[in-house]
């Protein structure tokens, strides 16, 4: 980020940069981006991308970025062997069920939930809880539109209440733990669940684990919603015929079905194009794709707060600080809601 800022200010921006979410709009507003709309029109990107994602890729109705993948954030990963120890044979579909299973695991001396210590991991958990407890409409209002009424609503208090419960399900050794070590805890049977985006699947795959038998993946209780994360290449204004041409070739290549298939098979995500055949993908990816299409139809697809897809970083930073503060102290839910609203107002003053 620092290097990019220095290069743009110096008038020597790179041709393409991996950026995401509202970060793309921030750079576009500075007039730093070039569009690849002719490629997008010719290849009809509008028809194959989810509208929520397409809107993020565009500035003033022109494509300035090309998405390479779609990650789903609201997943629960589980170790079925550990769950079997307390007689659980299916994944929870509501938060009450989740809490009941977690309490049972805790009584049996098993860590219910693996989580690390990075603030963004806390926020990822909160992201999923917010959608699960509040639903997609609430998520849109409170988090994407930052509506003050939704931010201070009773639903928000309930979100923090559930988050407080989650803190109780984490073991004490989380200090300095990265998300992939938390995934390994589930793999090794040291913890039952992890709530994390499907980049965690890459860890399971790298260890040779098979979905359905060695581990389970299921959408977190989410009332039919879907939290979207996507990596994308953003094109900066460059001079020189060959560089501009290079950008168009890259845009076309990144969006080609064969690239999207190959790349996403390795990364654990699914293609950003909804029309790529998923024959080579595993059951989790197929489920992700089905739910994605369903959520587009029901208008319950939401951009991820924790993965910098929903709101600018100054606002996200207020969520990040508050949520990690709440999670790591004994702050009450009511105080958290108040402090969050104050933080959003502070960010708005920018």
């Amino acid at each position, binding site marked *: *980020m620092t290097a990019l800022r220095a290069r743009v200010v110096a008038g020597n921006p790179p041709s393409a940069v991996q950026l995401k979410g509202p970060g793309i709009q921030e750079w576009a507003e500075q007039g730093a981006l070039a569009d690849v709309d002719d490629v997008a029109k010719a290849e009809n990107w509008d028809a194959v991308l989810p509208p929520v994602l397409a809107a993020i890729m565009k500035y003033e109705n022109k494509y300035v970025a090309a998405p390479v993948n779609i990650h789903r954030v609201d997943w629960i990963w589980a170790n079925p062997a550990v769950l079997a120890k307390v007689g659980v044979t299916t994944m929870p579909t509501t938060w009450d069920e989740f809490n009941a299973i977690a309490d049972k695991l805790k009584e049996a001396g098993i860590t219910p939930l693996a989580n690390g210590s990075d*603030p963004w991991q806390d926020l990822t958990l909160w992201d999923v809880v917010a959608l699960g407890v509040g639903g997609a409409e609430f998520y849109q209002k409170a988090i994407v539109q930052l509506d003050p009424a939704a931010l201070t609503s009773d639903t928000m208090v309930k979100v923090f209440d559930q988050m407080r419960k989650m803190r109780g399900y984490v073991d*004490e050794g989380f200090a*300095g733990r990265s998300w992939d070590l938390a995934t390994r805890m589930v793999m090794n049977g040291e913890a039952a669940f992890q709530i994390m985006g499907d980049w965690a699947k890459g860890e399971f795959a790298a260890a040779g684990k098979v979905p359905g038998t060695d581990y389970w993946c299921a959408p977190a209780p989410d009332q039919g919603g879907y939290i979207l994360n996507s990596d994308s290449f953003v094109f900066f204004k460059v001079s020189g015929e060959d560089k501009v041409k290079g950008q168009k070739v890259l845009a076309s290549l990144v969006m080609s079905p064969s690239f999207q298939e190959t790349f996403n098979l390795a990364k654990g995500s699914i293609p950003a194009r909804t029309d790529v055949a998923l024959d080579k993908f595993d059951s989790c990816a197929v489920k992700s794709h089905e739910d994605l299409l369903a959520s587009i139809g029901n208008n319950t697809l939401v951009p991820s707060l924790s993965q910098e897809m929903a709101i600018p970083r100054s606002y996200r930073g207020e969520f990040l600080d508050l949520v*990690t503060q*709440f*999670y*790591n102290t004994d702050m009450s839910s009511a105080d958290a809601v108040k402090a969050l609203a104050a933080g959003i107002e502070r960010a708005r003053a920018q």
Partner: protein
Amino acid sequence: MPPPARAKSARTLGIDRFLERWLPQIVVSPLFAASLIFVYGFIVWTVYISFTRSGVLPSYNLAGLLQYERLWSTPRWYVALQNLFVFSGLFIAGCMAIGILLAILLDQRIRIEGVIRTIYLYPMALSFIVTGTAWKWILNPTLGIEKFVQELGFPGFSFDWLIDPHMAIYTVVIAGVWQSSGYVMALFLAGLRSVDDEIIRAAAIDGAGPVRTYATIILPIIRPVFLSSIIVLAHIAIKSYDLVVALTNGGPGYATDLPATFMYSFAFQRSELGVAAASAVMMLVTIMAIIVPYLYSELRGGRK
């Protein structure tokens, strides 16, 4: 000698004289220019940015004290400031106390003093990143001390400061003191050795015990050592950033944030250049409040 050569030698003489006069200035000037631009120029730039609405990129439209108002209404900033005072105070006091005690004990002409001295001084050879990482594992409740003592047969033992937001800053103090007290010991040991034996013997003849001899005679003699150790420790405390990053990364939550980590995270992770600049200016002002009176008294002392 042919005339052209003589003319040339006159010219070289001129250049020589010129160089003699200006060489010091020429040699120093790049350094002077560099510090003028990269230190003082950027201080001015940072102060300017702190009065603008700069976000992801710097903007140059003045916005008054907006960023300072936002900074001083951010709870995280108060945590960072409080941590700076708690950490610096305890770090300096802890290093001094342990360092002096070790120096006095080593001063008793014990055997294998050289080996012991080296052992105590060794942590100083490590970088704060290594110290922080090692202590992160030692203090981790499921890996380090807590687990070890529990396995010794005390299952109720608990030592979880690293994940307790109220206590986490003290783990940073522990790691810092562990690293730096050996250095204070070395300074004081040198000081103690420089005290004249005659004075100590005279004190013994007058019937002063060892505690009284050290407290009222020897330590006051080596007062300058106090000043230099405190100055060295204070600057380590104020600039410490790497220790926090390696040990707790500011966590749990942001409980162990320092002004330096606060500034970094706002400037580079949050696209809030304005607030970050304001916090940097506050740090500068704080340091100036300490340094300026000190410099003033030093310079006045020099004139006397």
